[in-house]
């Protein structure tokens, strides 16, 4: 199988310093693993095997430990995803207020299914669990930001704004 294009994984001195500072907050360096993974994901878009090896070496953990952590948490992507990650909450409170209709609308609008990425690499749709936004349901998280109290018109508008950005 052909390997994906490998990018050399390397943190800048500034980033390494930040990790070093974070380490001082805990009794053992392992505690910083989530922050290291976040940084990797921010820099490279997803967490590759090379990235996991880099994180393991950085914190004196084994690659297996890091793989275990990466696969445990739902916020880490082990494959490249779109520029905008549309995370639709469909849990009860959002569902009661039409989250599944929003999801369908989104799939129709972008012509992809949940879990897929548009061919232009702009959008990925995911169905996620409760975002803790039940009072302002339905809610979609796009990358780091919450879009609350949504309806279909608002959603279509947000998508077209992101497309034209």
């Amino acid at each position, binding site marked *: 199988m052909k390997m994906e294009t490998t990018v050399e994984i390397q943190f800048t001195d500034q980033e390494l310093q930040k990790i070093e500072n974070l380490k001082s907050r805990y009794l053992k360096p392992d505690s910083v693993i989530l922050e290291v993974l976040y940084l990797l994901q921010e820099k490279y878009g997803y967490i590759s095997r090379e990235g996991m090896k880099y994180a393991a070496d950085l914190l004196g953990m084994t690659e297996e430990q890091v793989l275990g952590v990466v696969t445990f948490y739902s916020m880490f992507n082990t494959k490249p995803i779109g520029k905008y990650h549309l995370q639709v909450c469909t849990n009860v*409170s959002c569902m009661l207020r039409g989250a599944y209709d929003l999801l369908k609308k989104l799939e129709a609008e972008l012509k992809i299914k949940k879990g897929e990425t548009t061919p232009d690499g702009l959008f990925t749709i995911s169905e996620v669990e409760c975002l803790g936004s039940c009072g*302002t349901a339905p809610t979609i998280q796009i990358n780091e930001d919450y879009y609350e109290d949504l309806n279909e018109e608002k959603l279509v508008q947000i998508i077209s704004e992101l497309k034209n950005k």
Partner: protein
Amino acid sequence: MSIKILLKDIPDYHKIEVYRQHGGYEVIRKALQKSPDEIIEEVKKSGLRGRGGACFPTGLKWSFMPKDKNIPKFLCINGDESEPGSFKDRQIFEFNPHQLIEGILISAYAIGAQTCYIYIRGEYVKWIRLMQKALDDAYEAGFVGEKMKETFGTDFYTNIYIHRGAGAYICGEESALMNSIEGKRGYPRVKPPFPAQCGLWGYPTTINNVETIANIPPIIENGGEWFASIGEPKHPGTLLFGVSGHVNKPGVYELPTGTLLTDIIYKYAGGVPGNKKIKCIIPGGTSMPPIRGDQIEGLKMDAESLKEVGSAIGTGGIIVMDEDTDLVKVLARITKFYWHESCGQCTPCREGTGWMLKILNRILDGNGTSKDLDLLIDVANNIEGHTICALGDAAAWPVKYMIERFRDEFEARVKRSIKIDIPNKVHSMRRTQIPLTEIKIDFQ
């Protein structure tokens, strides 16, 4: 009478200068004059019970911490807030972060913790930033960290750090939270030993919910007796009720415990859209047993009253469902959540949640049989109480009680059992020794 302890109607209360104008960071000064034991006694007197769902008395929890001053001790503040229907802690991060920080300082002093971690779910990027800003301001003003010694003129100081999660419901379970801070997979630990004996890195640790700790400064300021007089005596104080689902004004309402559920829904949350009837209510986040719409008249919202109707207050996340709600769909969605979030350590939970989901989906597809309902309850019973942590129970309860309390609706969704009238009454498969040709059958 409206009493606000946590979400006060003061503009810009989240800013450190406004908080200080209203007596902020003076309670910690007062607390440091007392002994840690006196603080614990005051909290015991207040009757404060944990706001994370289990309602465990906070003062009692603190008293389990060893008094030894020569070992590291930790305080973890649980802001994982992943229970569906629960969205209260983010209100504190956003509107009253300094009261939380002051509460952490007092709590840390009471249990002797030198380091505190606020664990916040990874999705809450905005609220982590807000909390970090408040924390930076408090550090700068000398209320947190080593500068505390100078500011308050005592030997005690503590550091507070925010630890960001990464999307795992189970990390709201206290021992899973500790594993997550240690940089491991968020697996719950077997108890005993309890965290007060063996917690973070094997050292004594206390884990409290965000809302619990935010209640501490007013308790120390006004005294335990004052707090104990608010709301229901057995479960005093105010609660942040998060109302969602089919209501006109969903949101978080701070009300004394013992407030009528009907008042919360109709007076505060504006009633049900279209004036529809209520079919079902989940009173404290999806893990708690749902109750029927005809059970809510006169029902008070506190731990004891809900126990009487066979449910629990949980996190105070109330989900209202109107008469047109498809409860099979709701239950399937709830079960999907627990199936997705099961950490996979214990077989009953890992496998059971998947089986329950498959059966519920079968019913949704119209292929269920009436046997399926009993099968679901059977699977739920085999999960409940047979797992390391309470996620198993949380997955089992909605299934068990939803079917028990809305059996008619579920029965209507499964196929009627097929009755075939078989004319012969012989069911034995025993071989007959007489040749068939010699048998005379009398068809009458």
